[in-house]
């Protein structure tokens, strides 16, 4: 299978930089699969799972906290504020941040700005739990005020 260059960049570190066979990303419009030679493309990512088929054919999953994916002629880039591989996620930590997020949602009931942020935090925590195989498997949609 043809390979293409792929990078995942976050402000804290470059999570991945190398050649892969395929990546499946969750965009706001739905899941997209990118193979080598894909047309130039850019889309907004939702908080969700990203599946990467590595150079040797193995599958790795990553939790991505929103961002953007960009396919250009020579390489594909994912930019996200936070991303980690499934096996790196500490489920206890993710569970604690889920509870923390729930507490924040409770506190911020009457403040739309803070509520929005707490909801995003909850989504990230749920996403990490589900990607690491400890969650319910689905991500709750954020509650609209």
């Amino acid at each position, binding site marked *: 299978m043809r390979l293409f260059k792929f990078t995942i*960049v*976050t*402000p*804290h*570190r*470059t999570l991945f930089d190398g050649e892969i066979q395929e990546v499946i990303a969750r*965009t*706001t*419009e739905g899941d997209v699969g990118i193979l080598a030679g894909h*047309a*130039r*493309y*850019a*889309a*907004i990512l939702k908080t969700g799972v990203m599946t990467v088929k590595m150079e040797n054919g193995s599958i790795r999953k990553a939790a991505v906290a929103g*961002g*953007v994916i*960009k396919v250009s*002629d020579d390489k594909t*880039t994912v*930019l996200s*504020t*936070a991303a980690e591989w499934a096996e790196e996620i500490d489920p206890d930590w993710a569970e604690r941040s889920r509870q923390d997020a729930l507490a924040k949602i409770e506190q911020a009931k009457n403040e739309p*700005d803070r509520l929005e*942020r707490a909801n995003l935090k909850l989504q990230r925590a749920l996403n990490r739990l589900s990607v690491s195989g400890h969650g319910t498997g689905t991500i709750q949609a954020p509650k609209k005020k």
Partner: protein
Amino acid sequence: MPNLKDIKRRIHSVESTMQITKAMELVASSKFRHAKDRAETAEPFYRSIYQLMAEIASEDPYFNSQYVHKQTADGAVLLIVIAGDRGLAGGFNSAILRMAQARIDEVRAQGGNPIVMPIGQKAVDYFVRRGEKLLKTYDHVAEHASIYLAMDMAELVLQTYKRHESLCSVELIFTNYVSPIKQLPEHMQVIPLSELPELDQKKSAVEYEPSPEVLFDKLVPQYLAGLIYGAIAESFASEQAARRTAMENATDNATEMIDNLSLQYNRARQSAITQEITEIVGGANAQQ
């Protein structure tokens, strides 16, 4: 000839100062290493987003985002100023604050209305004392700054920008880390993104989902957050580098002073002994 006891006391005092400067130098250099790594890893993120925004904007000649052009403006300028939380870092804080003040004076001279968002205790103190109009202040955040804090800041800035018609530009003043001995205060225009570079477009168009405008506007907060986070990390690395250099110099000066004082002390001691011997010999001779 100075008194032996006085010289001894001065040597002690310089020695204890040297201990402090030496300790600060070590602390700064260990923090510096960490801060430099952080600043370096933050860079590719906002560079890539900026690149992508430039691509989107140059793709479409009719491209129009509120972040690129703003029609109504009567000259309020928001300045995000990043300085340190502590002093004793050579000219680090004064250089950045001088640059910020020069920009404020310039805005005023053009009939504009400067508003400041200071980050770092030194910047907060300075602008509070000067009585400038402040949007919000942040202190003691640089060392453990996270991207989420930067996202909050970016959100606040963008909300303010959208809500206030009179706010015509947002600018960032921070210290750019160049090398361990060189840090440069820098002033950059953040919004509107008027100077996106024009890129040569290849023939095949890019497919944007949902649309170029939505994607662009969605990228702006992330870009701004990445930029603020990067600027905080750069400034913090610069601060530590500046402090390390300043403390290294102070330690060197103290060593030199101790050397000089020891020389003086030994001379004084020698001449005191010589004098004593002369007195004894003189006394013995007188008795014969």
